[in-house]
């Protein structure tokens, strides 16, 4: 799938986002350290592709997303959008870039200004982008139809608190889509919603993709959800990619020991399921002080000598990429 002729829309090469921690004093005293929120991440996204970014809390999913839409600037490596290095963008070029990409936040209850009506909420990005007023109504109605709020008149003059969580999250999506971006990062867009409502929002997400051909990154720690919206999944651990491949293959046959634990840990809504102990150590990772070599080795049931001295590079196995010495060719 990564051999097609089309140039990728997104291209990350050893991208890094490191945050200094410890404050000014620590820096003056030379005690400062960094959190490597994103630490040498490489992947490409084709146009129209939808990729899940999966991993436990703190592994760098949001940081990766923010870096992709340049809410944070990469501190190392390269992030390209449509052939251009986005770190170098400024002025009008940056503005143009910002109208082509969007981030959908986790919490719909906080994402919208409570004093704006839904009409105002949706008109704001149009005004900022200097879209002629005469086009507003049409664009707003189209965006609302896209997120299946077809009966738009009913919602236009309401305030956010007068909508349900599922309706609000659709408005948040409509707002993100109203300028017809080419790329969207959805950061856990349903985690605050009730289960009975989640399904509706996920279906809308799938529909939007089918109708607009938008390229999307869907951030979640829930593989069961990612599977409904993304044909490809990238699994992260402590700022690095551990596995990247078709979602169904990862679900059916995870290759990296961390992915194996992750897949085994997902409960399913059936009475008969495995209660086998997880193949993983209990400790939680410390992002400020990761182990040498493979950062997963302190929890990995299959770690061996080489894992402590050398970080595993990418190994390609059919249409998957795995970062683990077990799968690496002998050197």
């Amino acid at each position, binding site marked *: 799938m990564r051999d097609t002729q089309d140039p990728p829309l997104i291209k990350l090469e050893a991208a890094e986002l490191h945050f200094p921690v410890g404050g000014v004093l620590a820096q003056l005293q030379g005690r400062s350290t960094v959190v490597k929120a994103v630490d040498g991440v490489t992947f490409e996204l084709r146009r129209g592709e939808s990729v899940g970014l999966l991993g*436990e*809390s703190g592994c760098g999913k949001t940081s990766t997303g923010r870096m992709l839409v340049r809410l944070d600037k990469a501190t190392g490596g390269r992030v390209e959008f449509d052939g251009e290095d986005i770190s170098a963008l400024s002025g009008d070029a940056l503005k143009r870039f910002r109208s082509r990409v969007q981030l959908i936040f986790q919490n719909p209850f906080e994402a919208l200004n409570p004093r704006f009506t839904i009409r105002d909420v949706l008109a704001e990005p149009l005004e900022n982008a200097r879209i002629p007023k005469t086009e507003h109504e049409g664009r707003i109605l189209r965006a609302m139809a896209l997120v299946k709020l077809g009966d738009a008149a009913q919602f236009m003059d309401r305030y956010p608190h007068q909508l*349900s*969580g*599922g309706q609000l999250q659709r408005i948040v999506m409509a707002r993100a889509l109203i300028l017809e971006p080419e790329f969207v990062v959805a950061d856990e867009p349903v985690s605050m919603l*009730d*289960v*009975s*409502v*989640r*399904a*509706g929002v*996920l*279906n809308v997400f799938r529909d939007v993709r089918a109708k607009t051909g938008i390229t999307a990154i869907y951030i979640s*720690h*829930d*593989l*069961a*959800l990612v*599977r*409904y919206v993304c044909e490809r999944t990238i699994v992260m651990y402590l700022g690095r990619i551990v596995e990247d491949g078709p*979602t*169904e293959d990862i*679900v059916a046959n995870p290759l990296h020991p961390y992915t194996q*634990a*992750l*897949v*085994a*840990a*997902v*409960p*399913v*809504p*059936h*009475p008969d*399921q495995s*209660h086998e*102990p*997880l193949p*993983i150590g*209990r400790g*939680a990772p410390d992002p400020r002080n990761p182990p040498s070599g493979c950062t997963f080795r302190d929890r990995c049931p299959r770690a061996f000598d080489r894992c402590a001295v050398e970080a595993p590079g990418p190994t390609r196995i059919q249409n998957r990429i795995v970062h683990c010495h077990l799968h690496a060719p002998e050197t």
Partner: protein
Amino acid sequence: MTEPLLSLKGLSIAYKVGAHDIIAVEGATFDVQPGSIVGLVGESGCGKTTLARSLTRVLAANARIAGGKAVFCGQDIVGLSERAMNGLRWREIAFIPQSAMNSLDPVYTVGSQLAEVLTRRGGMARAAARKRSEELFEWVGIETNRLGDYPHQFSGGMRQRVAIALALALDPKLIIADEPVTALDVIVQRQILDQLRELKERLGISVILVTHDISVVAYVCDRVVVMYAGRVVETGPMAATLTAPAHPYTMGLRNAFPDLAGAAGELTPIEGSPPDLANPPAGCRFAPRCPFAEARCRTDVPELLPYEGDHLAACHRIAEAETLRARAVASETWEVPA
């Protein structure tokens, strides 16, 4: 069947808001057997926390138990004096609040918070309390040398385990855990659920597990109680209730749930949202969202009646459950509420 450890009969709980009462829990009836895990499920606002809190009588100031009974080991908790209730808390019934991981006191070490419960509540001497604390930490899988750490030095999952250790401190018979794994990563979630199961199997402790996740119920629970808009709509053995639900709401929940073990087909939402409890609809509260609603559903409240054995449901069409189940599988059924 043995004598239940806890038996709720028509328990109702109201909140006073202005001049009005909101009945957040209405007529809740179910049993908890010794050594079993009961899952309490339902969507946000259906009254799970209110019900859970009422069982140790730690309700909000504007709340009151408006009727019914909650009989624990032969005593009705509802009528108990505050002093007698205090005797039950921690020792007999322990409560782990929703987001317990954020409710530990940040200024004391976790060890001193444990010691406080053991010495003040449990009347233990310092040395015995220290020994018990170590035992509890071992139980929940945290190194004992971390007893001197402050809550912020632990990850969310570890703080949740500390909260479980606190609940276990005085050997209760019943633990009520309000959303103990919500918002945790799947791996941590799994470890905590395994812990709860071990408590049941090795110590014979019963657990009421509040959750909105039916996969969690399927993983650890023996029985399930499904609530909708303040009422128990279905209750039964976990396997029977999840594989052959008798209430349309439970059928809908099942369809809305992603299933990693099944094919990645369509998820079917339940259209609409739960009713405003300040002004609930007459009759069956699920009627406005139910694809099977009939005229009587909008006027008469369905009673919780046996479906099969100790599997009960509150639906006027309970006798047709098998047919409804077959229809509920098709996503078209849920497109426009009848």
